[in-house]
């Protein structure tokens, strides 16, 4: 009898904690479908369209140097790219960081990638052709964007020496819900993608201080490659980061969003927005985000009634 009661109270406890996790069915039904109309999805899927709207609203983003939409535009590619010391090539409709090449400088006639890899003019022409061909997009064909390369703030480089870390903030009804920074590792091959083995570090929204970290599904306190402690750090420009995320959320009609931001020495820059932000951020933070979401929506109901 006692055992049964103990088991029952544990079950109740499990139910209570399960109720704090935002899961797929609820995310789709209560947050994505009700807050993001399908007709607005292209805003998030097409980086060029999003950039147009966001920059018009005063959101800081990396500068677009050039856009290639057709093969004939690649005639003078070498001369075009020769104008920039460093730059980033990315597909307008790519996802998961695929198809991105970061160029940091030149070596003779060739270009040097961030990992030290040498790209000839032929290599870059081939890559941009592949992007236009639609290799990295869900559609049949795409556009290639040449953007200014973001330099990372020194404090961020200390945390993430193997590549550009991004800050992901979940925004609901223009308010921040939960955040983390995704730090590339050797495992993730320089990509800031948790599924590919990037390190996820949770950030307290109010203070900007890192609180939890997760690597390959396990809690961790140090960077797996450098051994540097990743917890208890205050991220630079945190107030500005949150302001930027709020401004971006106000600029688009999508009300449940993942906002990705990078922190440069001069302040935060918005990278992209995502209409179906993942749920893994809860494991990184070591808590479910439903209580915060419900607090935000409860506030709104109170305001509606007044």
């Amino acid at each position, binding site marked *: 009898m006692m055992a049964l009661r103990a088991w029952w109270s*544990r079950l109740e*406890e*499990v139910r*209570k*904690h*399960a109720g*704090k*996790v935002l*899961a*797929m*069915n*609820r995310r789709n*039904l*209560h947050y994505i479908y009700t807050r993001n109309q399908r007709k607005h999805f292209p805003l998030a899927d097409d980086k060029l369209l999003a950039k147009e709207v966001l920059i018009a609203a005063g959101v800081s983003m990396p500068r677009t140097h050039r856009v290639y939409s057709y093969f004939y535009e690649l005639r003078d590619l070498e001369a075009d790219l020769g104008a920039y010391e460093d730059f980033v090539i990315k597909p307008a409709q790519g996802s998961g960081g695929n198809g991105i090449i970061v160029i940091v400088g030149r070596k003779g006639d060739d270009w040097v990638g961030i990992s030290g890899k040498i790209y000839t003019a032929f290599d870059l022409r081939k890559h941009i052709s592949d992007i236009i*061909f*639609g290799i990295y997009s*869900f559609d*049949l064909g795409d556009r290639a964007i040449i953007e200014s390369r973001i330099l990372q703030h020194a404090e961020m480089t200390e945390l993430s020496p193997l590549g550009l870390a991004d800050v992901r903030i979940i925004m609901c009804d223009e308010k921040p819900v939960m955040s983390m920074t995704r730090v590339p590792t050797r495992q993730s091959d320089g990509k800031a993608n948790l599924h590919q083995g990037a390190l996820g570090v949770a950030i307290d929204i109010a203070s900007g201080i890192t609180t939890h970290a997760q690597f390959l599904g396990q*809690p961790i306190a140090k960077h797996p490659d450098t051994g540097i402690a990743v917890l208890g750090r205050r991220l630079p420009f945190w107030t500005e980061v949150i302001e930027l995320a709020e401004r971006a959320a106000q600029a688009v009609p999508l009300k449940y969003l993942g906002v990705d931001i990078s922190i440069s020495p001069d302040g935060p820059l918005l990278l992209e927005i995502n209409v179906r932000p993942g*749920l893994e951020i*809860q*494991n990184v933070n*070591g*808590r*479910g985000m439903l209580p915060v979401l419900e607090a935000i929506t409860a506030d709104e109901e109170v305001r*509606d009634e007044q």
Partner: protein
Amino acid sequence: MSNQRSVKTRRGAYIALLASMVSVPMAVAAYKLYVLDYPLAGLIPAPSYTVEVAMQVDGHGEDIRIQTYLPKTDGRQSVDNEESSSGVFVPNMHSDPLNREVTWNAENVVGQHNIRYAYSVRAHHVRFDIPEGMPIPESYPVALAPYLADEPGIHKDDPQIESAVNRIVPAENRTMLDVLTRIHRHLQDNIANRNFSGYTDSLIALKLGEASCNGKSRLFVAMARKLNIPARLIGGFVMEQGSKRTSHQWVEVYVNGHWVPFDTINDHFAEIPANYLTLYYGDQALFRHTANVNFQYMFKTTKQLVPQRDAQDALSQSALNITNLYAHFERVGISQNLLKILLMLPLGALVTVVFRNVVGLETFGTFLPALIAAAARETGLMWGVVGFLGIVLVSAVIRRGLDWMQLLHSPKMAIVLTTVVIVMMATTVGGVQLGLFELAHVTLFPIAILAITAERVALMEAEQGALKVARITLMTLIVIAACYAVMDSLFMQSLVLAFPELLLVVVALNLWLGKWIGIRVMEFMRFRRLILEAAK
């Protein structure tokens, strides 16, 4: 304000739709059951046995004759789908009121020859209650005289049988129930079961205190007749999945106008189970044949569930029935089988929805598992799965090769589909060549489903890699198997055929699942650290 009103209106519409999707079909089903008197028991599929008797002889130039008994349809068992192949042997049937005898004759037989006879059987369990205190009649109609007589092997008039009967049964107050119970218990408890196939007469069984079915049955009949109760031997066969050579004998006793069965080998008192097949009445040999021909035989039994046809035919007499609708489909050449697949598709889709939204498995497309399970109905689950895996593999390999050549999407997909079709046809030809006829059925896999599968697999492999394709293939297989189990269930098929309005209940369940925001099982695993460790 108006926004809130529209939310309320929408919720009201949802609840009204949900309620009507449950109540309308329930009302129609209740009307059919209570007003139109639909037989509900007829929906449960019944076990059916296919029995194949294989006989073999070696001839050395002589004339050969083989005789055996075939089962008859009676009140307890029904026999149909009879088929035979006898080669050089010419069959000759002979029926009398009790038995159906078949004789195969052939002249100057040289070498090994096979005769095969197969039929399917459905039979009932029967059980009789013998009233307590019922006396043993003193006389019977003349027609029953043979069942009271002494005959070779059944030594009714032998003094040893008489003294044994007097030992077992008290001299006074002999009632039918008491006498039969004592004989049955004596044979069951004091005469040991021996499993040998030779002939044992009633006296030898009594003396040895052990016997196989035929000895025990003869002793039972001799004792019953001695006590003035008509009794007879039954020859038959216990239908069990598999192959065997043993036939069986039991007895029937005439009680109050009924022949009541007893089996003292398997302890069935006034009853026999549904898997007993009656082949002949009387003290006969199941097989008789020309001597020295090395006669061999084997019974092969397969058990399967079949819909109760008669009950379903009865349904079509009622108004408001889908079987009346079938006539319309048949007029344009759409078979009932295809219609059944159509009716089962919504159930397959529901199973898929449960696996996706409640369990949290990912599959190729929302309804692909249901469609593949429907296709596998024609080939059986195993070959359906083989076909599905073949398509996944071929499309992935072909797409890789074509990617290297850099083709545009649509022509590339057309080539993938063409290759899949060619591979399927080659599989069928190869299957027939090798004698693997089940493999040949893979071509029955509908082409439209091949096209969808091939395209999905190719796209996913390109976008998310081979490992992801392998994972989703595995999960899709699990869902296909579950869909198949539901869609192939005869009970579900009979239910939906009789009550097609239940498809609205499927809609209701989907309406409910469409608002279900619980954590999927796979997500529970994914977030188990947040849920279980926090709960400690």
